[in-house]
């Protein structure tokens, strides 16, 4: 439930893109451990190390393989924009995907549940999207690849008026631009 894949994009036509970075991937990947950094303390930047991400799970990718790009939604507590541990895990995954596909730009949508008034939630949705972006930038994703939008409570994922729906609606959602 928490890791609902909202958008799965198979970029078959990114061979060219992959090809551009593929050489460096192959040559530099050996120096990179397969462990994925958790949290925002990575000092990697995707300028120099699109190189660093391709060995996700220890499997070396070939340049001709399609790249599966899948972003998980990030969920928040009520009236909070602080990232929970599960949010950090999802964001780490999202960051790895972004680093592995440097041509991809994203829009992070900040959403709120319906409680509280709309104007406050516009501001809160903005904070949530920014918190997600900050994590990605700290991870090493170039900030220029990330745009933000706050939908406040205006575009709920679940339409109910209960705890289950509210928990699903307090989220940051990633859209490929």
């Amino acid at each position, binding site marked *: 439930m928490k890791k609902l894949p909202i958008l799965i994009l198979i970029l078959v036509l990114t061979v060219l893109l992959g090809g551009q970075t593929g050489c460096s991937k192959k040559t530099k990947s050996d120096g990179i451990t397969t462990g994925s950094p958790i949290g925002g303390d990575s000092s990697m930047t995707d300028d120099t190390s699109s190189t660093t991400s391709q060995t996700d799970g220890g499997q070396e990718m070939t340049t001709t393989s399609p790249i599966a790009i899948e972003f998980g939604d990030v969920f928040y507590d009520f*009236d909070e924009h602080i990232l929970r541990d599960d949010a950090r895990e999802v964001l780490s995954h999202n960051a790895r995907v972004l680093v592995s596909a440097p041509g991809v730009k994203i829009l992070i949508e900040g959403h709120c549940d*319906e*409680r*509280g*008034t*709309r*104007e*406050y939630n*516009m*501001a*809160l949705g*903005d*904070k949530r999207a*920014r918190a997600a972006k900050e994590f990605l930038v700290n991870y090493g994703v170039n900030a220029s690849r990330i745009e933000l*939008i*706050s*939908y*406040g409570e*205006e*575009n709920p994922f679940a339409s109910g*008026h209960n705890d289950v729906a509210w928990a699903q609606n307090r989220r940051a959602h990633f859209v490929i631009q």
Partner: protein
Amino acid sequence: MRLNETENGSDRLPGALIWLLLASLIVSIHAGAPGIPTAGAQAEVVLDVTKSSFFKVPVVVEEFTWQNLDPVVFQGRQWGEEVLIDDLLFSDSFVVLRCQAGSPLPAGLLVDVQGNPVDKRVQARIRIEVRRSGSKLKLKTKLLDESTGQEIFGKTYDAHWDAHQLAADRWGIHRLADEISYYLTGTRGCAATRIVYVNAQGSDRDLHLIDWDGLNSTSLTNLGAIILSPTWKPDGRTVAFTSFHEGQPKLYAYDLKKQKLTKIVSSTTPSAPKYSPNGKNIAYSTTKDGNAEIYIAKADGSKPKRLTFHNAIDTAPSWSPSGKQIVFTSDRWGNPQLFIINADGTDLTQLTFAGRWNDSPDWSPVKDRIVHVCRIESSFELAVIETNGDGWRLITNFQKEGGCENPRWAPDGRHVVFARLIDNQRSIWILDVDTCCLRRLTRSAGDSYNPAWSFTAKDRLNTQ
């Protein structure tokens, strides 16, 4: 022009001052009363009806007389003394009786139009002669002292007459009802006002306009996008709001008369617009500095100036009647509370401390009090507080049927319009803060929310 007439008129009326005093007495007494309505039907008076009617002014409305026009054409068209009576009742300031033109009231115990006995002396009589004159109806209005027969106030109002549709606009009646309210209670009524709100059906959002008695609902825009937070400019012909129709949310002003949409703020996530009382400035929130801060710009969006400086959410500004202060919501100490700041950025003070959630403030246009949303356990209720921090009290107690949003004052500073989530749907409601009489305004399909009450309009604008 009309204001001058009114002021002159009040000089001729020694009783006006008495009613003013009585009106303030009503407020002070009800301020101390628990007065908490429960959830329920369309219109309910939660306080004891006879008790609250003690403070209402009994007036008698004569049946209209007609010249050059057969009143039969208005049957079933919601025009005539019915409209006037509704206006007077909706103001929650009057007990209304009706009688034939020129007839004296019968002796003995009288009954009002709602079937309740009238145990007070009837104060005034309203006599209206309707004369057709081309495309206009002239409403020759007289307000008479019921005991002496003396004329308190007299004036002729216009209403537009459509000979093809056999229809007349109700605006003339609304306007005269408002002036009669002023003469008898010291407070101008708000029958000649409208409410703008957002209606959402599926992903379709639209701005709707409705008379304050729930009639004449019209659709304003068709932007095919998320819109929220509409707010009136004091000129009565412009509504500003946030819209997503260009992708990112921006602030727009819609001129109702010219039907023209203008982008006024292109900043990041601009929301919660509110025009200053003189209409020259607009306050709003934007996240361009990394979190929501309040800015004040000229009404056209130019020369924005930052008002708040804190790494927390600052939003939902509302102006004091003088335009010198602003109340807003901030979660700078962990949860949303209300703060007041001078419009020049000085003298920040915290207004609310109680509870974990106080949000969406609206400063009364006539009094030093603020209505806002307050979270009580899991319910969102309405509360009022004096601007000096005294007199905080809940004005709703819906509990599980709570879900109150965006309370906004009527120009009379007595009624509040708000959105309420009930039965899995949002609708627009009106609450009389002094008597706690509750009315449901909208029953349309979909969600209706984000209401804003217009200022007292001088003329109805043709927005059809």
